[in-house]
């Protein structure tokens, strides 16, 4: 019997597990696989429309931010910064000032917190910069990147093709292939020797985010020193190092604080029917082709939305919550789930379970479905997290509230 069982190993699930374990709760985290975090940009988007702290009161009432409350967001951000700081993976930015970081194609992405290497505070749009492209690395588009960055007002001087030592690789290289090599200090020294002559006259260089996975901040600092110029990293399409680094930091922190992590198991909810009060008793784990029961006093559902397995849309138009089959409010008009353009607000994004301020999922009448079940992150209804640019902020704030409520 575990005190708190968390289902889902994305940002909200991992963050919730650390918060609970830090106050000595007995925590088990179960996940079918790695969560959405590992394919994300590894930043904390809170609200892309304007500075979040100012516009908070203008957000509609049924939005997860309003339900969780500004206080939860503030506490969560501080807790997140403490976790990443303690893991020597510092973030820049704050809730009161937005950061704009270049994407892989040179668009500007608005975020609240970004890893230090992505949001180098000394780089402004008046700093003359060069963009390095690495031979053999897939998903690296220097021309488009330079053109779009210039259009966005950056003083990009040129792009510089950079090569790798050794013979030509047998296949396209993933960003992770390079990151593993950059983790090795002798490889960094070798690369610095090779690249230095090509970088004369350059003061600031943007590179695809490949500078290390295991101790990225240290790798970044040491490589910057070796080259003797300012560096910044630009996230690549998946596999994306900033997301993987953050995931690694959170997994390792969770293990450090004693979270029991069960990876590679899907879950079916178990209901306690012996009591008068409606409670959940845990889950049935489906792992390696066999099933086991896992009992828990409290369960936090952090399974995400349609893209992450928390919600399932069937061809008949029905929508289901994947673990406890919680009641959902939806219309069976399947085409209405999608907007005509991919860049529009997407109706499907707002689907999910409704919760109260305790983060307890509610039935269609507005009463908690189970006394000891809580929800966090993308499974919660009421936000188009993509178009709002609010994905990670909601993950953190609702996880904070869910853990507080579960520990009460």
């Amino acid at each position, binding site marked *: 019997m575990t005190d708190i069982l968390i289902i889902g190993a994305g940002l909200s699930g991992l963050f919730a597990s650390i918060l609970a374990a830090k106050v000595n709760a007995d925590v088990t985290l179960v996940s079918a696989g790695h969560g959405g975090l590992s394919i994300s940009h590894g930043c904390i988007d809170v609200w892309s429309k304007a500075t979040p702290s100012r516009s908070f009161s203008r957000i509609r009432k049924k939005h997860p931010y309003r339900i969780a409350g500004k206080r939860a967001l503030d506490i969560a951000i501080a807790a997140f910064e403490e976790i990443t700081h303690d893991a020597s993976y510092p973030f820049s930015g704050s809730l009161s000032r937005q950061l704009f970081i270049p994407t892989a194609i040179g668009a500007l992405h608005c975020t609240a917190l970004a890893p230090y290497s992505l949001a180098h505070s000394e780089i402004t749009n008046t700093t003359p910069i060069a963009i390095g492209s690495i031979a053999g690395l897939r998903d690296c588009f220097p021309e488009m990147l330079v053109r779009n960055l210039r259009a966005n007002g950056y003083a990009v001087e040129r792009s510089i093709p950079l090569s790798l030592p050794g013979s030509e690789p047998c296949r396209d290289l993933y960003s992770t292939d390079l990151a593993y090599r950059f983790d090795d200090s002798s490889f960094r020294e070798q690369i610095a020797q090779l690249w230095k002559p090509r970088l004369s006259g350059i003061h600031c260089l943007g590179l695809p985010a490949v500078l290390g996975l295991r101790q990225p901040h240290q790798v970044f600092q040491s490589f910057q020193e070796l080259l003797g110029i300012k560096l910044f990293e630009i996230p690549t399409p998946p596999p994306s190092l900033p997301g993987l680094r953050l995931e690694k930091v959170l997994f390792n922190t969770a293990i450090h604080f004693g979270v029991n*992590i069960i990876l590679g198991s899907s879950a079916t909810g178990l209901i306690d029917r012996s009591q008068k009060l409606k409670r959940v008793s845990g889950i049935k784990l489906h792992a*390696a082709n066999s099933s086991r029961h896992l009992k828990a006093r409290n369960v936090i559902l952090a399974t995400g939305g349609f893209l992450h397995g928390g919600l399932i849309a069937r061809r008949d138009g029905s929508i289901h919550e994947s673990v406890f089959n919680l009641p959902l409010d939806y219309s069976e008009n399947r085409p209405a789930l999608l907007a005509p353009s991919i860049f529009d607000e997407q109706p499907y994004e707002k689907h999910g379970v409704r919760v109260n301020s305790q983060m307890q999922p509610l039935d269609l009448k507005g009463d908690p479905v189970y006394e000891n079940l809580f929800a966090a992150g993308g499974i919660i209804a009421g936000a188009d997290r993509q178009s709002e640019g609010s994905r990670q902020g909601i993950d953190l704030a609702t996880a904070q509230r869910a853990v507080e409520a579960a520990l009460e």
Partner: protein
Amino acid sequence: MNHEFLSTDHCLKCNICTASCPVASVTDQFLGPKAVGPQAHRFQHPHYALPDVSEEWCSSCGTCTIVCPHDVPVAEMIAKMKERPHRETPWRDRIISRPEVLGRFAARFAGIVNRLINSSRVRTALDRFLGISSKASFPSIARTSLRKSLRDYYVKSPNRLEEISRLTVGYFHGCSTNYFEPLIGELAVRILEALGLYVFLPPQVCCGLPLQSNGLFDAARKLANENIKYLTPFLREKIPIVGTSPSCMLAFKHDYRSVLGIDTEEANLLANSSYDFFEFILQFVPEDVSRINYNKVTALALYHPPCQLRGHGIGIPALTILRRIPGLHLEVSDLACCGVAGTYGVKSERYQVAYSVGEKLFQQAFALDVDFIISDSETCRWWISKHTELPVYHPLEILARSMGII
């Protein structure tokens, strides 16, 4: 995970598996699990092999299946591609995949064999003529096998079991415990007995996993069916099976059905009645476990949970107990695999890749200056010990020490 032909379509190409693959990260000769698994799977003909042979670089650690969030059996797809009846299997692979035969033979001449496998001349010759890396790790052969020293524990069929009220469990020791590390088996039995269980050794053969990893599926199936035949009578009496080797238990729980395709009621029964040692004691005798009087084990240790244990999808149950031992300061490795992956790192042409996979673990052990390393799988222990020159223990050896059993 049985419906793999359907679940190929669940692959979103997110690359989570590729990003986690220990082999792809150190060699570009392997295309990566996504490309070799679900991507190539769409083009596979039932009777013709794919021209690409990059799947031979896969070490079968299973990490891709574990990290996949969409239930795509990536590792299983790649494992099945290794079954190629028309391809010649090297002699070397036919030899190293039969630990039981090797063990039974070597046990008779333990002294000589141990001296021979430690001789650099012999190792050079094995490397040159058979392709068994001279830098790879070999276990030493025990003079007395576990089955010999625990002769009295052997129970042939359930009707020979004594009528007792205690919880009863059959211990599957596997080849390596029997021939190479009998101490682990003896300690396992003594811990289970100290926790109030009645333990016996059922009839058993090699689990067959080494054969499966080397593409010898028919031979592996034969062993699997033998184990199923021997164990089913016990399972029908609701007697669970516990193992100390995560790879054997993974074969029982998963590979017999999902890779070897043995789709019978008996195989299901075996899968659902097999347990890792620590999973078992935490689930079946939690009160007795919580009453253990742990003695101090003052040490700094690095714990590496093997890829085969991660494959169970049960978390890391040994960690729960190791953390209760006073004085034991534990660091947990976050490396998905130590590199050797059973017989993979033993092969001359794979050795360098296997070493590179495990290198970060060895470096971590040196950087932390640990007293010893802990790991559940036998091949991991031998491999890590060889490359760090540190003692590497099964977690139950540490538990036994803390319980005062050794």
